[in-house]
């Protein structure tokens, strides 16, 4: 266990009432191939201390390379914060754990020769670029190892080693003034998991290149998606982002309490709605689960030293809970935080972040979801936007198919749908049984912006009478 005692001692001697110290070492390897040529092959390493203190009920945080100096700066900042405090910040209790946790890894992604990885992605590029109308292709993979030590003045001593990796491919076809993109296994860098290189191997990126390229070309030629109110079936990676934007973010209690009001906004899920608000139909149950194996939001302990756990956010359609921190849990009258505080790196103050926010599976097969439907099936996110209380949203997808009398028919391009969050989830009358835990490495939040890796379990689902097209 790395000794962070001097940081704690320096802060307490300077007057801090509470202090926690994180020492973080990051290692990242990133390979991106554009067309058939490597675009970026990067190895990144960084490390440092992040010290958080409470002084007379006010926060201070400092990041740097020298432990004691950084701790003293944090106290100075907290003393400044105390000049503009209204009430003293109080933290909900936590058991001071002394423990260690790490991602189970079968094949160390950093031990696989970089030549092998580049060759795989270049080979992908060759297949992706084969059709004449594919003008751009992307193939990439990324691995990150984050080793961190956490010590608090309450006695916690925690060491964790988190490893995740993943990748994806995409083809962009351009013809006749139109441009269409198709990705695998999902958009925006692909899919990621808290596993070793065995996960990247399981994606079989090369085997999917031909289909992805052909679908990009087919989309350019495809007719536009019909518009109007109709039934839709969403593929699970699109639903993962839907859960992210319309359930994950609005259940972050810091947002709800107004801490993000000037930046990302607040939330329509205000505290009086807990246990009493119809968030969705009885088919909709959503949980936050930081214990899910392989999830990007999985860990042993959060960055406040709270043990990983499972919390129900929506229970059979009823809004039932928040993602909390020690500070916000106390404000809400909860005894304990449910452990969602994470910082992107040593130099960021932890914030409430999504862990694995999972839509629980139903019992419908894909064929049963389509049964009797006349509407549109949409897959793979292309664009997303939602208002600052997370009510009105609009999503665009890469690809769509008309559904006629329960059968997938014509491929259509530029599919999009728009709705208000409770009405949308209220229109969900079936969730599939083909459940998958997606990994999103790029959730943005906070000032300065922090990019976090989060997980979303989802299965395809059906929604009745949704506005398709931009309205």
């Amino acid at each position, binding site marked *: 266990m790395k000794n962070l005692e001097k940081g704690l001692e320096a802060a307490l001697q300077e007057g801090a009432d509470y202090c926690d110290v994180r020492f973080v070492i990051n290692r990242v390897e990133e390979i*991106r191939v554009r067309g058939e*040529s*490597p675009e970026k092959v*990067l*190895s*990144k*390493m*960084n*490390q*440092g201390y992040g010290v958080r203190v409470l002084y007379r009920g006010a*926060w*201070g*945080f*400092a*990041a*740097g*390379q020298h432990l004691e100096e950084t701790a003293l*700066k944090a106290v*100075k*900042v907290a003393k*400044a*914060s105390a*000049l*503009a*405090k*209204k009430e003293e910040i109080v933290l909900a209790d936590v058991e001071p754990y002394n423990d260690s946790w790490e991602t189970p890894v079968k094949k160390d992604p950093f031990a696989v*020769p*970089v030549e092998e990885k*580049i060759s795989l992605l270049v080979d992908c590029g060759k297949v992706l670029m084969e059709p004449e109308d594919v*003008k751009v292709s992307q193939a990439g993979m990324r691995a990150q190892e984050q080793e961190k030590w956490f010590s608090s003045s309450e006695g916690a001593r925690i060491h964790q080693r988190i490893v995740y990796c993943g990748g994806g491919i995409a083809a*962009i076809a*351009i013809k006749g*003034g139109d*441009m269409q993109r198709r990705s695998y296994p999902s958009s925006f860098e692909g899919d990621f998991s808290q596993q070793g290189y065995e996960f990247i191997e399981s994606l079989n990126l090369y085997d999917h290149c031909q289909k992805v390229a052909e679908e990009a070309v087919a989309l350019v030629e495809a007719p536009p998606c019909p518009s109007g109110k109709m039934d839709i079936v969403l593929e699970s990676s699109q639903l993962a982002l839907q859960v992210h934007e319309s359930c994950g973010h609005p259940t972050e209690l810091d947002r709800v*309490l*107004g*801490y*993000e*009001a*000037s930046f990302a906004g607040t939330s*329509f899920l205000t505290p009086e709605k807990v246990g009493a608000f119809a968030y969705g139909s009885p088919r909709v149950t959503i949980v936050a689960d930081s214990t899910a194996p392989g999830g990007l939001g999985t860990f042993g302990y959060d960055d406040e030293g709270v043990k990983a756990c499972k919390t129900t956010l929506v229970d059979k359609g009823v809004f039932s809970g928040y993602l909390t921190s020690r500070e916000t849990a106390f404000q809400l009258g909860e005894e304990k935080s449910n452990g969602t505080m994470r910082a992107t790196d040593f*130099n*960021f*103050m932890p914030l409430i972040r999504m862990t694995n926010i999972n839509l629980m599976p139903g019992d419908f097969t894909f064929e049963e979801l389509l049964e009797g439907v006349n509407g549109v099936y949409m897959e793979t996110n*292309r*664009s997303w*936007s939602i*208002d*600052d*209380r997370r*009510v*009105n949203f*609009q999503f665009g997808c890469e690809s769509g198919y008309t559904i006629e009398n329960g059968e997938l028919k014509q491929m259509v391009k*530029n599919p999009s749908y*728009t709705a208000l969050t409770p009405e949308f989830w209220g229109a969900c009358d079936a969730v599939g049984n083909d459940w998958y835990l997606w990994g999103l490495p790029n959730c943005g939040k906070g*000032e*300065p*912006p922090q990019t976090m890796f989060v997980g979303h379990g989802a299965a395809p689902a059906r929604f009745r009478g949704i506005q398709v097209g*931009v*309205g």
Partner: protein
Amino acid sequence: MKEDVLSILEKVMKLSKADQCEAHLSGRSWGLTRFANSYIHQNVVEENQELTVRVVFGKKIGKAKTNQLNPESVGEVVERAEKIARAQKEILDFVSLPEPNSIPEVKGFFKETAEVQPEERASLVKATIDHAEGKGIETVSGAYYTGKEEVAVMNSLGVEAYFEGTISSFKVNTAVEEGTGTAQNFSRNHKQLNCEALTEKSCEKALASKKTEKVLPGVYPVILEELAVCEMAGYLAFMTFGAQAYQEGRSAFSGRLGEKFADEKVSFWDDGTNEKGFPVPFDAEGVGKQKVDIMVDGVAKTVVYDSFYAHKEGKKSTGHAIDAPIPMGAGPTNLFMGKGTHTLEDLIGNCEKGILVTRFHYTNPMHRLKTVITGMTRDGTFLIENGEIVKGLKNLRFTQNILEALSAVKGVSNTWGIVRMEYMKASVCAPALHVGNFNFTGATSF
């Protein structure tokens, strides 16, 4: 210190055995104070530096980064970059790192801004909260940051560049009943932020939009205030103004330079030396900045280049390389949209019926080639009738082709707002616009 930074980069040059080598150092020492519910909820200071080494063997390139600057770590990062390069495949279109070039002088460092202490930021935040609450505002939130940044680039062909600048920003959001307001500013000199005036403006917005009413989605004339236009211009630049998108056929300008894309009142240029924005005298490859006219009187003139994409066309870099987490080729980093002659009040006065938008929220591209974006209005959306603001409106969703909006510009303000994206080290200065047709496609509940 300049000498310390350059000595680290020199050490990289000496250690590297590659055919060509580039060292880039970026550092920041700053403090950010966030406030919400009328108290400080996040107050941070950070000191960090990052050294990036790019090495070239023939046409094989490797890149490595570290934030440890001791001699052992500097040697290790060079070795790591070279190991990658040796394992690489050739990048056939690569020609060379940039040659030495002229780098302009830019004033971007203000000693007092570099030395702002946490207590000063906290005092200003407290004064802001008191000011707003005195106006009847219920909740005040925002962020105030100050600090300094330094960046240096050196390469084995003789490029050597160093810049030290200061950064600052103040943003305040105010809320009362169902009304919200916002105001923000960015400057290299924190004394030019005018925090008190921003607070006053934010309060006025919130109080004026107190009783919001619904309006049906549809096509309306709009007055887009500066913050909204900055966001729209930023997306247009990201999708259209870079050489990578242009060469790949992903830019609306691809193969169409010289064509008219917008109203004659619309011009864009990038100028890394212009101190009205966030000047930096050179790009991530150490190429000196210059003014580049991208669109003049509505006509597309050029796109911006880094050395890789410039060499593909046999051109020289325009000094627009970006060291972004996701490679996106070159892009504007100090972008300006031309001002007009009208005041904002003139623009409103000339609008018979329309909607005034203070800012956008969560905007994202729907179709990049067609420059279609969607997003929400936020923090002050108002109905204009007979040239006057008559009431606050509930927020609306828009889905709009940017170039079509710029083709329908009826008036341009004589003012600039500014938005800076710290993580991209890029800023946009833009005026307010009167746009004849703007497509609102949905509405929300507040």
